């Protein structure tokens, strides 16, 4: 077991008007697992993901990764851990407009002060792996949304993260770009044994996962394990979405 989340909770707002975003959630994630976190908008998916990735601190509970309780870490150590062990893909890409594609991709390595040779090697490898060699000198403004997300994925993966966090990675993409990205993610999950935690409200996107947990009103409502067949898994996800409310067949991509 790589990640153990124990009884975490998180409130937002002041005492009287506080919103309980996460209420006493516990879960475990194995190494190399592709875990989906689903739920309707406002269910607490992103909050849960942010807490596991140390981008937000829980009010209560523990987050243990590789045997280390990250909630006890100082902000500075959390940032270091985040930089070395984790990769991030966001719906809004979070690319730095002032940097070009290459600079965006190599950013995590540069931040780690890796040597130039390693930077160039890893960059070439990632660009080949994701098949985006021709984008390397381009400015971010010149890329399509799909290309931006692939670049964001390349940045997330360049320093071989042990855990990849993806928050609605296909949210801004058309179905074709979404499929390409998801295939890459699956490939990385299988080839590099990278653990992936992905928050999504889209059943098609979730069907790439090996397990999906459903969050509603800040608690884990249910979970489904991929039986090995994606179409069957997809049906199960849709049914569960129907049960909890917040998803239906209209979320299904035409490409499926």
């Amino acid at each position: 077991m790589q990640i153990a989340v124990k009884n975490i909770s998180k409130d937002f707002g002041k005492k009287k008007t506080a919103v309980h975003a996460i209420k006493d959630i516990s879960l475990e994630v194995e190494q190399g697992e592709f875990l989906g976190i689903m739920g309707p908008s406002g269910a607490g998916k992103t909050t849960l993901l942010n807490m596991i990735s140390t981008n937000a601190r829980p009010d209560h509970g523990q987050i243990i990764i590789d045997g280390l309780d990250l909630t006890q870490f100082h902000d500075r150590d959390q940032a270091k851990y985040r930089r070395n062990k984790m990769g991030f893909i966001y719906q809004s890409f979070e690319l730095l407009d002032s940097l070009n594609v290459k600079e965006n991709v190599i950013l995590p390595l540069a931040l780690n002060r890796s040597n130039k040779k390693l930077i160039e090697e890893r960059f070439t490898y990632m660009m080949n792996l994701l098949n985006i060699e021709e984008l390397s000198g381009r400015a971010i403004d010149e890329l399509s949304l799909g290309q931006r997300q692939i670049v964001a994925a390349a940045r997330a993966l360049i320093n071989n993260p042990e855990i990849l966090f993806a928050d609605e990675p296909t949210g801004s993409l058309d179905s074709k770009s979404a499929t390409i990205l998801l295939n890459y993610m699956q490939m990385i999950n299988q080839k590099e044994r990278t653990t992936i935690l992905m928050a999504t409200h889209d059943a098609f996107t979730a069907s790439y996962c090996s397990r999906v947990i459903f969050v509603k009103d800040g608690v884990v409502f249910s979970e489904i394990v991929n039986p090995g067949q994606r179409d069957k898994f997809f049906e199960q996800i849709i049914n569960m979405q129907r049960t909890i409310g917040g998803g239906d067949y209209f979320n299904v991509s035409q490409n499926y």
Partner: protein
Amino acid sequence: MYRKIIRRSLSNMRDSYLIYILACSFAIGVFGILISMGDNPSLRNALRLWDTFIYDITVTMSGLFAFCAFVYMIYVGGFFIKQQRNEFLTFEKLGMPRWILVAIGFFQTAIVQALAWLIGIGLTLIFQKFMGMMLFYLMGVRFNFAMHISLNDLWLLLEIFVFSTLVLSIINAIKTMRILQKKQRKVIIKTRWWLRIPAGAFGILLLFSAQICTFYLFKDMRMISYSSKPLIEIVYIMGADIFGTYLVYFGFLPTILNVMQKIHSVAYSGVNIFSFKYMKERLFQNISILWFVTELSALALALLTFCYFGYQAVHQNYNSAYPFELAANKDTVKVIREELQKNNAKIKGRYKTEVKINLVSYYSKSNESYVRQPMTFMSYSAYKSLPKRMRKGNSKINSHQFLKIDYNSSLMYNNPTSEHNIEVKNAPMIQDAKMGYSFPYGSSMHFGPMMIVPNKYYQKMPAEVKDTFYGWDFKKGDRLSHDQLERLGGYRDAYYMKVDFKSSLEKSNIEVMKKEPNKYEAATYTQAGFLRQGNLKKRFNQGGGFYLFIVALFSVALLVALGSVLTLRVLLRDDYQSRQLRTLQKIGVEESEIKGIVRRENTLTFLIPIIFALIQSYTSIAMFDFGHHMSKNIILIYGGYVVLYSLFGVISYQVSWRGVKQKFNL
């Protein structure tokens, strides 16, 4: 709904608004104090000596101050509207009528201005007494400063408030309108390296040449009375500094950052990969402001330099003209002593020195001509027995050396350090004499130059006229009444010397006349009977204090204006710039590293203008050519300015970091 929009935008930019409101309040407060001080009854009563001068100056200064503050408000007030650009455009897209957005811009400004005026008037009321007391303290006046604001002043303040708020609100409403009309934003900054690189190189060349020219100016300033070279140099230095600085900001600094960014071994290390580009972007955005602040800082420093040296010049002239509170010669000493006995003046120190007057002839280096004139001679031991202040501006001499004290030695331009071959009637020629400008007993006691000579020389030399000078220092003044002074009026001139120059000095002689000649001839000299500091001392101290008060007030106001402009430029980042810092945090950049980026940005914004301003203002020191002995005070003045300026840098950094951190927690 509209009230909510205004409230939210005021709350979102509260740090920036707070700085702006405080800066405006300070300006309004100072303006209110100046305007109300002019017709304050206690000021009028305490400073009768100055008649309407103080009132005229405070009114003029408050007018000048109001104008500068108004320009500042127009310029800086526009930052906030610019910052709300995206918000206004979104509201318009959502269907909000344009006139409502314009009205929001108008009322927002009006609210902020009203708040600033409210605090400003409050500051006037609270600090008027304090500032008045400070003015009295600086002027050395012992008088109770009573707080007073006349109805006229209040009405005037109210009128200015209404007028300025209306104008500023209309200007910001127009700015809002223009934002809505020009929807396309010029986001892309053209790098144009083909222009920036040569421009930057030329800028550096200009600044470098200005520094070399400044070096020459130090030498050439003494020629200003007869050569146009120093003036040409000053004009060149000013032009080269002003344009050179802009070109350096436009081309050189971005090029340096660009080069750093291209060196992968440097750029691909830590946050440098981001910070070089980020800072370059911020630099591109702020070139004009940085330049503007640099030039105004240089101007402020130059003004402080001029003021300092100007004050020094007046102070020195005063001191060299009136070193004793009261001075007299042998003809007037008796009557003055009698008057002093009558009013029980407390004498702190009394001095008496014998002098000889003889004829001399020499070639004057400063006038570049031969001079024949009477000269007062004093022995070395008599000179040394006088208080040290009498020798302040003179070269140091030993008991075997000669010292010539002359009016020509001015504060502004260095005279030759020595004079040679001075012929003295019936005495050995003086081969070499050092120079000075501090006359013992005051320059006004002397009709011409004087010479300090070795004791032996003095004893042996003949005299055309013999005299004795007397000097007194008092505790709390000489207490001479108006009537006493009227009685002493007849003794102002002790005697007159008519010189009859012949073919040689030996044949020439001086005729002493007790009565004023009916017809003054070129060779007639007057020996002063007595000299009194009296009212002049009071006037000098009060004038100096008032001058110091005004200069300090304006310097601080300028500093507040410049500091707040820079702080607001740092704080009012574009949304996407703040977002980028947040992205860095999300992908694992430590807070300390992001703090480092904010620190670098602040350093770039604050440090560079002050460095360039200091370099430029150095020229103003060169214009006075004082040499190194004056530099300590100037360093203190400059140091004070830099410390206060840095204070803004530190505050700006703290507030800026607070703003960034707040966004991290969202």
